């Protein structure tokens, strides 16, 4: 299998702007190409667009807008983990020898249709993500005797981190009291516990080992990939206080990279709602069951940016199709020591966790310099 490296990235601010998806898509792609003038644009032989938007033929459209004629061009939709699914597909094209240089661009509008999974009728009338998040939160609080103020630390920490991310949607820090006194969405969910669907775009360029070494001084290598789909329907989750698909994905990603969890220096975790972060931290193996919030609180109190340095989904905003790519870009910047005032010192190995629809499916990537 050919080695695959990340050789360029492009990301633009996440907003609530009402723009055409094609314009949003072009923003980060333009940024990527502008910031990396040495990239041989005409050698990009594959373009993958990650989005839940209903517009058609977006990958050929993007290719035409940037003036290239790739061999492979198509979209990928898999709800919230469309981004890392696109990266895994791009990886596979290169690893198999089908392509050498793959552009992956994710984009979404604030009104993304990817928020609601119409098919999942076992959810009855409760199809909005706030309902599975409320059930997860209630189950997690019950199982581990957690209070709302304990859970609020995730939102406090991630909004704090977001203030050091110029592309983040959040422009404000919040206290524990602010979080627990924010508008009640349900009995178990406050407004500040939720990530916000927004408009945003993020792009990444993958290259084969040979080309990566030619066009980049410091490529970041994708050394581990783990993916698992348990179901499409939320009610098929056996456990409501842990993430089975995440457990399997992270185990396989770490095994492929020949790493132990202790060797992960920095991680992006899919905190669609506050409760998702401790659940994921435990399921990935950063800490034992029920200790995720203690782990996050210690990081927050020591101002350690190891988990969700860019502010996670809660702080950065959640443009669904762009999220997994934005998470990956953050880890690339961390490993290249380009994360400015949110830099985690000596970060050599990083992890990305991206999931969909109440963790019915997960992707975990391990990245290394």
């Amino acid at each position, binding site marked *: 299998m050919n080695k695959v490296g990340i050789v360029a990235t492009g990301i633009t601010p996440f907003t609530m702007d009402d723009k055409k998806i094609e314009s949003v898509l072009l923003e980060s792609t333009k940024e990527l190409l502008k910031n990396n003038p040495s990239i041989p644009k005409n050698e990009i032989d594959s373009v993958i667009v990650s989005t839940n938007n209903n517009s058609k033929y977006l990958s050929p459209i993007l290719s035409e807008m940037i003036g290239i004629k790739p061999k492979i061009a198509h979209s990928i939709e898999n709800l919230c983990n469309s981004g890392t699914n696109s990266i895994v597909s791009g990886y596979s094209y290169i690893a198999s020898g089908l392509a050498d240089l793959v552009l992956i661009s994710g984009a979404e509008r604030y009104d993304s249709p990817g928020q609601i999974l*119409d098919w*999942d*009728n*076992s*959810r*009855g*009338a*409760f*199809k909005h993500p706030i*309902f599975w998040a*409320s*059930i997860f*939160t*209630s*189950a997690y609080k*019950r199982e581990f005797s957690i209070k709302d103020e304990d859970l609020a630390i995730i939102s406090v920490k991630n909004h704090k981190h977001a203030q050091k991310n110029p592309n983040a949607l959040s422009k404000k820090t919040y206290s524990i009291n602010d979080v627990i006194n924010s508008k009640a*969405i*349900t*009995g*178990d*969910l406050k407004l500040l516990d939720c990530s916000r669907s927004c408009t945003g775009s993020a792009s990444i360029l993958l290259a084969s080992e040979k080309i990566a070494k030619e066009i980049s001084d410091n490529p970041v290598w994708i050394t581990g990939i783990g993916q698992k789909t348990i179901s499409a*329907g*939320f*009610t*098929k989750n056996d456990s*409501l206080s842990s993430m089975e698909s995440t457990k399997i994905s992270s185990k396989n990603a770490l095994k492929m990279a020949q790493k132990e969890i202790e060797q992960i220096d920095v991680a992006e975790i899919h905190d669609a709602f506050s409760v998702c972060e401790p659940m994921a931290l435990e399921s990935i193996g950063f800490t034992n069951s029920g200790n995720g919030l203690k782990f996050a609180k210690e990081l927050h109190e020591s101002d350690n940016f190891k988990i969700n340095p860019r502010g996670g989904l809660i702080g950065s905003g959640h443009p669904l199709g762009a999220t997994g790519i934005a998470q990956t870009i953050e880890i690339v910047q961390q490993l290249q020591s380009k994360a400015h005032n949110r830099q985690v010192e000596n970060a050599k190995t990083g992890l990305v966790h991206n999931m969909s629809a109440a963790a019915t499916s997960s992707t975990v990537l391990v990245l290394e310099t």
Partner: protein
Amino acid sequence: MSFESELSNGNFCIPKCTNCTKIVWPPSEFCDGCYGIVSLLKGNFEGEIIEFSQDSHGYFCMVEFVEKIRIMARKKEQPQIGQIVKISTCGIKDESYFFEII
């Protein structure tokens, strides 16, 4: 009658494979194990509340029936974990199933 036409008439049925007897959930015309034809069991089934929360309209619960059939259902009175309940009202509205339990 299909699961959905029964549900539209207010009847919650349990889909079961006529070939291998597996309970098929979510409802489908064919068994997800052997692709056999699915029939519908009728009855006043009992389920157990395994988790719940609430919003401004009342409580919403995850209810588990036989062989891990789970649905999300509305409940007016305070639910208890482990409480045995039955579907009082169900149907299809705006292309979505809805269930109410007592």
